[in-house]
């Protein structure tokens, strides 16, 4: 049996905390205008970095985006960004996609000029040296 009363209590409990653990006063998907990021193809491990032009853009962004740019002064993976911003993955994807189209961040796309085998050899050396 489904206990509806218990569910209701949980829901109301959530509403009482308009500012969540991050101190954010709006719900994550409000940041993205309801977009979920499901249609954006950025890998979890894709490396994102602020462009040299990012500082020109900074004043134009709300704090989530501004904090994102701040975090990617050195390249950072999408999934790590999401975790550090305490945003669901899909929301972080939308933010990154918006900043990409603005030119405030860039995506490093590794281009294979050697085969996967030689990359794996270097990975193996790296893991052995841990």
């Amino acid at each position, binding site marked *: 049996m489904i206990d509806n009363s218990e569910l209701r209590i949980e829901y109301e409990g959530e509403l009482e905390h308009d500012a969540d653990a991050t101190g954010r006063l709006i719900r994550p998907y409000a940041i993205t205008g309801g977009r979920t990021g499901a249609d954006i193809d950025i890998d979890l491990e894709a490396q994102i970095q602020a462009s040299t032009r990012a500082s020109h853009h900074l004043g134009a962004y709300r704090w989530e985006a501004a904090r994102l740019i701040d975090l990617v002064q050195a390249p950072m993976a999408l999934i790590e960004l999401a975790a550090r911003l305490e945003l669901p993955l899909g929301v972080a994807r939308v933010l990154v996609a918006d900043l990409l189209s603005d030119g405030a961040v*860039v995506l490093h796309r590794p281009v294979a000029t050697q085969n996967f085998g030689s990359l794996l050899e270097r990975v193996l050396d790296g893991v052995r040296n841990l």
Partner: protein
Amino acid sequence: MSVTSDPTTTAPGKIPVKIVVAGGFGVGKSTFVNTISEIEPLRSEAMMTSASAELDDLSQISTKETTTVAMDFGRISLTEEIVLYLFGTPGQQRFHFMWNELSRGAIGAVILADTRRLGDCFAAIDYFEARSMPFIIAVNPFDGQKTHAIDAIREAVQVDVKVPMLFCDARDRADVKNGLIALVELALLRERAQAHAAT
């Protein structure tokens, strides 16, 4: 492999590679990642879409309910150029849809097994076998005693002798490292065999 450098950046990005850490609920996946990650392991969340939620058993509660899936991950800088991410898969069967995203482009998987509940790793074995992804089985000896011989465990989980299987205390850095080495060696052997077959 080289990295294209966008004119708007000053430094080239690192090449990201990833390894999936799979296995049943509570088998030590997060511990495995914690033990070797150079950063405090992080947790990222994704929401199940309502379409996925409808397939879920819990959707009986409400079709509009969203479920949060948490993924633990860690990072290891292997070289100046290569950074390795370790992803702990959400253990419960109903989160398998997330595995596709986690394993896309991955080197392979370390499947953690608990000798007290060997059946819990079958789903992971089936998943990676079906996708022909390299995987190894790391047996976490919870009781501190390696009472089960590897051969007996191999027979119980019914995997090919070519699948590396080793004992791995998820809290022990050397054990975790050995697990990663075994997986990358396997992936490299496979890659070479495929390259050879293609020529």
